[in-house]
């Protein structure tokens, strides 16, 4: 057993806003942040349900810094500031005293909109004169680097680009580094901002995006529901402050929740199709890592994106891992209201799971009105549920490419 690791701060730039408590309240009520958004031009575009973030860097990042930061990086530094402030590590108008803090980030496409602009210059304007700063702005590692530079954090600054599992792996690796004594404190999470015209068009061609639901676009993300048509893309940045027990005791702060286990696996199977065996391996590994009995797990924040192929496989994997205990579990997909933030999704869901443990409240799967018979576990339809005894929860992220990651969190 290594050192205990706690979440002591949260910073969110999310489809539901920025205040963690009110974001959780809205999610708990099944209040969707999904809207119908026009992308592309009038004659060459598309209306899709998306979970965009109402974010502007104005007055939060200097104009000079903004010039060199893609949207994902801009959201990441503002979320990081919120996380550091909420943990008490960064006071108003102060700077970080102990710079030996690690930055462990997840990000899928980096500065996707900057790459799009570069290609527009080359292919549409037929010019080789793209912006000189295009390369450093499109790097997936941009958000982590900007956080490190902005706050003077000199610990390891790592980016995990593992599609939908990116930020769950980032948090898991930060957890391990702290548990094993390599560092005391880390900022960890994810950032993603790929809702530009070119990226959206590419996603549409993959055939996995949800169409607008007849009851309204905000009802389009429908994990476990027979009327689901696919996933709803989102964007945002979510940062957690992770600290070793010794560090937070020294500072005298109250943690939000404890991370007790992390497991990963690879399907070695398909670029896009999920595989129950791989998902089971990640969950089993995380539960073993947490040194708990599987019967102690009460809530699973599922990866479930709302695709007809993905949701039943995850339910099958959960049943295989938990066996008789599966029917006692609450299993919900909060993607039903905040969409799929890809590289930032695992971090948002870990944050929601941490708050769920802190408040003793299980968030629901919204829009679950016609349950798929294949998804016959307690999927907490519609509205959240009071659960004062909630102690141990699991958060799953399963990526394109077959990388699976699971975190286990415990109430403090």
């Amino acid at each position, binding site marked *: 057993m290594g050192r205990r690791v706690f979440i002591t701060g949260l910073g969110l730039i999310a489809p539901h806003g920025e205040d963690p408590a009110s974001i959780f309240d809205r999610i708990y009520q099944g209040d969707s942040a999904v809207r119908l958004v026009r992308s592309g031009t009038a004659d060459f575009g598309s209306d899709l349900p998306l979970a965009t973030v109402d974010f502007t860097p104005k007055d939060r990042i200097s104009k*000079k810094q903004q*010039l060199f930061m893609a949207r994902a990086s801009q959201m990441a530094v503002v979320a990081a500031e919120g996380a550091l402030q909420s943990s008490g590590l960064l006071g108003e108008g102060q700077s970080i005293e102990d710079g030996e803090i690690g930055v462990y980030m997840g990000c899928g496409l980096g500065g996707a909109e900057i790459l799009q602009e570069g290609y527009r210059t080359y292919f549409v304007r037929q010019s080789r004169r793209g912006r*000189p700063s295009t390369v450093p702005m499109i790097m997936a590692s941009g958000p982590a680097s900007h956080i490190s530079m902005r706050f003077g954090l000199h610990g390891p600054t790592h980016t995990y680009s593992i599609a939908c599992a990116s930020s769950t792996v980032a948090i898991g690796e930060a957890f391990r580094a702290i548990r094993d004594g390599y560092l005391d404190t880390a900022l960890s999470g994810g950032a993603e901002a790929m809702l530009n015209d070119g990226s959206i068009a590419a996603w549409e061609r993959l055939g996995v995006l949800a169409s607008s639901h007849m009851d309204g676009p905000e009802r389009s993300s429908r994990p476990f529901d027979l009327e689901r048509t696919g996933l709803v893309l989102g964007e945002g940045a979510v940062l957690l402050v992770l600290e070793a027990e010794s560090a937070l005791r020294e500072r005298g702060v109250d943690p939000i929740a404890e991370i007790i286990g992390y497991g990963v696996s690879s399907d070695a199977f398909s670029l896009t199709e999920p595989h129950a065996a791989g998902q089971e391996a990640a969950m089993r590994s995380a539960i073993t890592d947490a040194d708990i009995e599987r019967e102690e797990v009460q809530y699973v924040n599922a990866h479930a994106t709302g695709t007809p192929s993905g949701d039943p496989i995850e339910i099958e994997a959960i049943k295989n891992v938990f066996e008789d205990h599966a029917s006692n579990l609450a299993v919900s997909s909060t993607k039903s209201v905040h969409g799929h933030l890809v590289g930032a999704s695992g971090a948002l869901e870990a944050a929601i799971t941490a708050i769920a443990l802190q408040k003793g409240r299980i968030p629901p799967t919204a829009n679950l009105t016609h349950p798929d018979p294949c998804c016959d576990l307690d999927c907490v339809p519609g509205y959240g549920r009071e659960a004062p005894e909630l102690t141990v929860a699991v958060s799953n992220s399963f990526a394109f490419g077959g990388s699976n990651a699971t975190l286990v969190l415990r109430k403090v």
Partner: protein
Amino acid sequence: MSAYSYLAKVLVDKYDVDEDKIRPEATLTDLGLDSLMVVEFLFDVEDEFNIEVPDDRAEFETLAEAATLIDELIEVKGD
């Protein structure tokens, strides 16, 4: 707009440079621009005046020297 006034305007508007600090003898480093920012800054200038600053001419130190170089390139282009 003269090259010097344009340089000054871009530095204030896009690079948060304090207007009081803009003087002919100030260098871009003095004004808080790192090497990537200088390259990006020159890119703006080139686009504005439809000129190209040759690599071997981009070794100016001060704002006044930069403005002289750009005025010269504009004049050459006009010929």
